[in-house]
């Protein structure tokens, strides 16, 4: 269930504050009542002591002048002296002559103890103190001092009402304050959400700028902007793939269409039809290759393809790849010395062959005819290393990081000469599947070196590759 955070926080805060204020009010009220009672008790005790002294000195208590009922209640002090039977023998006012008697407290007073109690008299709550009279006061036995509680209750009710009103106002003020606070706290978030919502795919470099200067929100905005930057890169990457794939599909289709159209344009000889069909077949092969490369790449990258790792001599697999390349390639000299001891490694020979084919094809495509391509294999620190080095123009330093990216072509305008732009990506995915490592580096003075390191299955004695072509001397490592 969705709810508005601002309203919910404000209501919850106000309710909490209201409950807390009411609890404080009740606690304060109880405390106040107790203090008032203590004050009454203190007052009763003082009256008792004064009247007891008066009784001891004068033989009678201090009497009030004759007052009416209203004044009598306001004065609020009733004092009577009782004999041992409980009969009132003296009173400070006529109205007190029928003051109620608490027999328990009276008995305690007779026993010499002072006791305070509560009762009702003339329909009103009273608090009463019973205490013994001073010795030598004749028939007097107990001094009883009483006070009405009504003034106390009225005062406490007024205070309680004010306190509750204050608590309610406090809760209301809390509600308003909390609403204002939450609104001001959430407003930046809403602004950020509004900006994020306005950002649309396909328009790069859109960023959230709202409240980027607020320290508390800077982290959130940075995270969102970093995410947007990643999405931008991903979007651009996909856009590029769709664009390049469109181009790579259209060129063979254009050639196929032109070939078929030209064949049908006029009456042709049988050999011309055969040539048109053969040409069309070539383009179909190219499209198939592209489709296969994509399919293979997708399987490699998704982890669907499980390599059949078998102990295989990498030198032999590399030699076979060189043979295939020599059959395909014209105009390049591919140098490889196949003699030497076996270099076993757990590899999927079919996949490794594919990777090597791609590397050799890549070297051929990107180097001028007549240049050399050196291939070498060697054992190195428990792994098997394969290197393909060419004498081409190499790759600019700033482009080296993109070399294994999909559809990366050294020169974007090389057309089909540049190949599918998937060769090195495929090779890298295959080597990755073998838990190997593929790296590229520029050669001095020119050319590119691709180095593959495959984990060896058994300890392989390190050895220098004595069969390495001498060409390496011409291109020392930088």
């Amino acid at each position, binding site marked *: 269930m969705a709810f508005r955070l601002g309203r919910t926080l404000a209501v919850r805060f106000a309710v909490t504050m209201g409950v807390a204020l009411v609890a404080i009010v009740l606690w304060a009220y109880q405390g106040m009542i107790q203090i008032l009672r203590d004050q009454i008790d203190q007052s009763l005790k003082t009256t008792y002591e004064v009247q007891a002294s008066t009784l001891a000195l004068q033989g009678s208590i201090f009497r009030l002048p004759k007052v009416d009922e209203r004044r009598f209640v306001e004065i609020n002090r009733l004092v009577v002296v009782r004999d041992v039977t409980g009969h009132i023998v003296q009173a400070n006012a006529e109205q007190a002559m029928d003051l109620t008697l608490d027999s328990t407290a009276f008995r305690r007073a007779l026993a010499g103890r002072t006791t305070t109690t509560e009762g009702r008299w003339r329909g009103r709550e009273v608090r009463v103190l019973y205490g013994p009279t001073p010795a030598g006061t004749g028939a007097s036995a107990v001094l009883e001092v009483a006070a009405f509680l009504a003034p106390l209750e009225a005062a406490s009710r007024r205070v309680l009402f004010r306190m509750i009103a204050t608590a309610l106002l406090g809760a209301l003020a809390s509600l308003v304050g909390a609403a204002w606070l939450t609104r001001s706290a959430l407003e930046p978030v809403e602004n950020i959400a509004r900006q994020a919502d306005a950002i649309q795919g396909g328009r790069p470099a859109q960023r959230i700028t709202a409240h980027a200067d607020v320290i508390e929100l800077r982290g959130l905005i940075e995270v969102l902007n970093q995410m947007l930057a990643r999405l931008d890169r991903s979007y651009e990457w996909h856009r590029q793939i769709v664009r390049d794939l469109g181009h790579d599909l259209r060129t063979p289709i*254009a050639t196929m*269409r032109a070939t078929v159209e030209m064949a049908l344009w*006029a009456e042709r000889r049988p050999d011309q039809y055969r040539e048109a069909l053969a040409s069309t077949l070539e383009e179909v092969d190219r499209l198939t290759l592209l489709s296969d490369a994509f399919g293979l790449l997708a399987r490699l990258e998704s982890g669907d393809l499980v390599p059949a790792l078998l102990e295989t001599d990498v030198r032999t697999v590399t030699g076979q790849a060189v043979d295939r390349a020599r059959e395909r390639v014209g105009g390049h000299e591919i140098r490889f010395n196949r003699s030497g001891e076996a270099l076993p490694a757990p590899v999927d020979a079919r996949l490794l062959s594919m990777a090597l084919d791609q590397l050799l094809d890549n070297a051929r495509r990107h180097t001028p005819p007549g240049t050399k391509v050196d291939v070498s294999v060697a054992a190195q620190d428990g792994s098997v290393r394969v290197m393909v080095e060419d004498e081409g123009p190499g790759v600019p330093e700033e482009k080296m990081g993109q070399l294994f990216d999909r559809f990366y072509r050294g020169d974007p305008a*090389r057309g089909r000469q540049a190949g599918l732009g998937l060769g090195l990506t495929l090779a890298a995915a295959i080597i990755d599947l073998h838990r190997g490592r593929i790296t590229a580096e520029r050669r001095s003075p020119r050319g590119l070196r691709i180095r593959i390191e495959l984990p060896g299955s058994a300890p392989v004695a390190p050895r220098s590759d004595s069969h390495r072509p001498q060409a390496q001397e011409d291109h020392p490592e930088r």
Partner: protein
Amino acid sequence: MRILIVEDDHKLGALLQAGLREEEFDVEWVKSGEEGLARALAERYDLLLLDYMLPKQNGREVALELRRAGQQLPILMLTARDSAEDLEEALRAGVNALMGKPFRFAELVDRIVRLTSAPAPG
């Protein structure tokens, strides 16, 4: 009518040359932008059939150089790219018309005829 084809794809270039010759155009074919630029500046052609994706100097750059050099011959560009930016760039470079790959040969011929029969630009 003389047409210069600049197309690095050997198969497509050969097909275009053969097809247009059958239509009785006087056709020459070069395989790079640099060669195309040099030939178009040195000789007189009635139309330049220019591929967009060429090694080193691409079709857009060739068109731009020709226009800068004051060469006003009609340029028909063939392209496998059809993004708005690519098309806009090509037209800004001075290309008269564009044809996306794949194209119909009859349509290509029709476009060539129209461009060469239109009054010379500029």
